């Protein structure tokens, strides 16, 4: 039975029993007390008549004296019965109303509704824990990609704000603590449709708890967790989170890549961009002396990146931390004097890394006044301050929620992308520029969709069948042909081909495919949809690959078969 019904029944036991007793006593009295009929003979109500009378009296409907006018003794009894039954009835109704107002009861109702909605999801979905800035951004992006998700958060306010996001889907969301495994189960963790868990709360401990619960309750499901420190990252990885995203460490790493090979950085940010973002012009942070204002979680990662490249760094921090080998200036960095002392006049770049948006803007504005040519990297803590940061237009603006969202999507879409990014990371600038040129020529400047195709009987049955025949050569280029017009090329580019233990990066499109090959494509979503028939439909395949426009039906096939009857 439904949980809410059970709770309601248990709470209403006393008023119901009282009402039953009042009815019983009232009925007994009504049947026992005689009345008189038109002829003056005594008559008595049947039990049914009495029940009928009680029902309309207790509920204050009051049809009158049915079936006959009452005698005085009956009226005396009825007077008593009216008071007793109306009180009993009011008691029941009052209890019912207070139950509906009760927070605990409402929570039970909400949970029941949430469970039913999750249960009704018949499509693959992701489970998002934590609807802060990051969770909301990831939710939006999932929605834009047409992926379903279920959300839980401890804050009622944030769950309600989900309704204001104007998403294409109706997202089941519940106010619940994700640390409790039962809440994760209620959110569909154990369901076969659950494709992944994203735990994005701002509490490392909570994220760790979710990662552990998922590992134990449904080991099949991948977990992507957010971590704000290196310790937490290591801890989560050891407990079996599949991917841990530390936005500060990720940014530090990307910054190092941007300095070493600006092209690689540009390519990586483009491929992991949220849907709708455009390819940005190349920004290359200069080598030289850097000033880092604020030596917290973010500042320390940035300093680590600079030191990895043997760059000279000066730290500005009010707490004056001791970092061996580096000059530390005490102060916030918002005042010109502090920045002058840190050597802003001849610095190559400055990083405003405090956790206060106004201070960060103040730091970079002051720094540019002192040194107009300085390269500025500014940390934006709240998405609400976007307007200010857009207006200022720093060389690089670091938004941790966006970094996490980008990473999440890149990881969720296909694990092959992570492998590709790993390769890009180690390539030089010239290689990356060529790669960008090749991709952009075919698919434009908007951030592409990335997908994987495997030459097997499930993913690409038509191609799999063709590859099994000796007389049917199939090249990579054939997968990029439009099956409506084979001369037209689809807006997609193969980025990676995995064959056994071999990995080919940006493979030549003339390459012949083999069974079991896995190809990573980047392209427009429309191209992805247009490619599907070539992979799955034999007729579409024959047209795209060989230009044979074969009639579909069995009779036509027989009639046109060469040498057929």
């Amino acid at each position, binding site marked *: 039975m439904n949980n809410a019904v059970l709770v309601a*029944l*248990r709470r*209403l*036991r006393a008023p*119901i*029993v009282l009402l*039953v007793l009042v009815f019983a006593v009232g009925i007994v009295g009504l049947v026992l007390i005689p009345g008189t009929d038109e002829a003056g003979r005594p008559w008595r109500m*049947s039990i*049914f008549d009495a029940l009928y009378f009680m029902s309309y009296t207790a509920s204050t409907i009051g049809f009158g004296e049915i079936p006959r006018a009452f005698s005085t003794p009956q009226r005396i009894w009825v007077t008593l019965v009216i008071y007793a039954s109306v009180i009993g009835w009011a008691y029941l109704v009052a209890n019912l109303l207070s139950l509906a107002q009760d927070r605990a009861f409402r929570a039970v109702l909400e949970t029941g509704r949430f469970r039913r909605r999750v249960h009704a999801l018949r499509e693959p979905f992701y489970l998002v824990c934590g609807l802060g800035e990051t969770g909301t951004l990831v939710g939006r992006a999932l929605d834009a990609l047409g992926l379903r998700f279920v959300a839980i958060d401890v804050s009622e306010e944030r769950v309600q704000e989900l309704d204001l996001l104007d998403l294409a889907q109706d997202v089941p969301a519940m106010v619940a603590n994700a640390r409790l495994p039962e809440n994760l189960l209620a959110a569909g963790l154990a369901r076969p449709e659950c494709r992944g868990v994203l735990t994005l709360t701002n509490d490392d401990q909570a994220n760790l708890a979710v990662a552990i619960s998922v590992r134990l309750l449904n080991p099949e499901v991948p977990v992507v967790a957010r971590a704000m420190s290196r310790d937490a990252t290591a801890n989560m990885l050891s407990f079996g989170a599949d991917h841990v995203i530390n936005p500060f460490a990720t940014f530090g790493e990307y910054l190092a890549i941007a300095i070493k090979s600006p092209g690689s950085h540009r390519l990586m940010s483009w491929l992991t961009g949220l849907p709708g973002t455009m390819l940005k012009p190349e920004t290359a942070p200069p080598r030289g002396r850097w000033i880092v204002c604020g030596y917290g979680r973010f500042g320390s990662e940035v300093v680590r990146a600079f030191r990895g490249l043997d760059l000279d760094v000066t730290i500005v921090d009010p707490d004056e931390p001791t970092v061996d080998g580096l000059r530390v200036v005490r102060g916030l960095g918002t005042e010109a004097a502090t920045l002058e002392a840190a050597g802003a006049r001849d610095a190559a770049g400055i990083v405003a890394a405090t956790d206060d948006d106004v201070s960060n803007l103040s730091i970079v504005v002051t720094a540019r006044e002192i040194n107009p040519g300085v390269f500025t990297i500014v940390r934006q803590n709240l998405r609400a301050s976007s307007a200010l940061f857009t207006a200022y237009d720093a060389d690089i603006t670091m938004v941790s929620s966006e970094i996490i969202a980008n990473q999440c999507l890149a990881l969720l879409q296909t694990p092959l992308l992570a492998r590709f990014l790993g390769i890009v990371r180690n390539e030089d600038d010239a290689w990356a520029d060529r790669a960008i040129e090749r991709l952009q020529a075919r698919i434009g400047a908007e951030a592409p969709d990335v997908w994987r195709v495997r030459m097997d009987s499930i993913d690409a049955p038509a191609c799999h069948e063709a590859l099994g025949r000796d007389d049917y050569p199939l090249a990579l280029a054939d997968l990029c042909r439009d099956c409506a017009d084979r001369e037209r090329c689809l807006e997609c580019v193969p980025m990676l081909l995995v064959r056994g233990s071999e990995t080919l990066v940006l493979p030549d499109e003339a390459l012949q495919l083999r069974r079991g090959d896995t190809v990573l494509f980047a392209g427009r979503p429309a191209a992805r949809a247009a490619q599907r028939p070539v992979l799955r439909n034999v007729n579409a395949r024959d047209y795209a690959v060989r230009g044979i426009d074969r009639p579909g039906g069995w009779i036509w096939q027989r009639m046109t078969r060469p040498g057929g009857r």
Partner: protein
Amino acid sequence: MNLEKVIFAFFIILAATLNFGFVIGEIDNPLHHHVWEFFAAFVVNVIATVLKFGDRTQVGATHLATSLVALLQLCAAALIWALAPGGEISAETMTSIVSLSAGALMANVVSVVILIVETTLQRR
């Protein structure tokens, strides 16, 4: 001793005994089956059912199910009684009323058995 348990057991057993008292006698003889006894059995059964609401255990569920069965049978019997033509109870009507109540008695007996088993299993 727990007052709630006493009341619970009281109503369950009273429902069974009243039901038994009504059913006993010649099945088609209206003189052997009094309307007040039926009424009392009915009311007590309703109360027993309400008292069983909201128990989430397996035993609680079976308890509630037996009571609902008894109530259903008694309702059917009450309906036949209320619909009797001219308010006169013929032998045939009485027979169906009593046989339906006997069915309810079965359910009530099961309920009592569950109660006893549950009590003996509890070693406190």
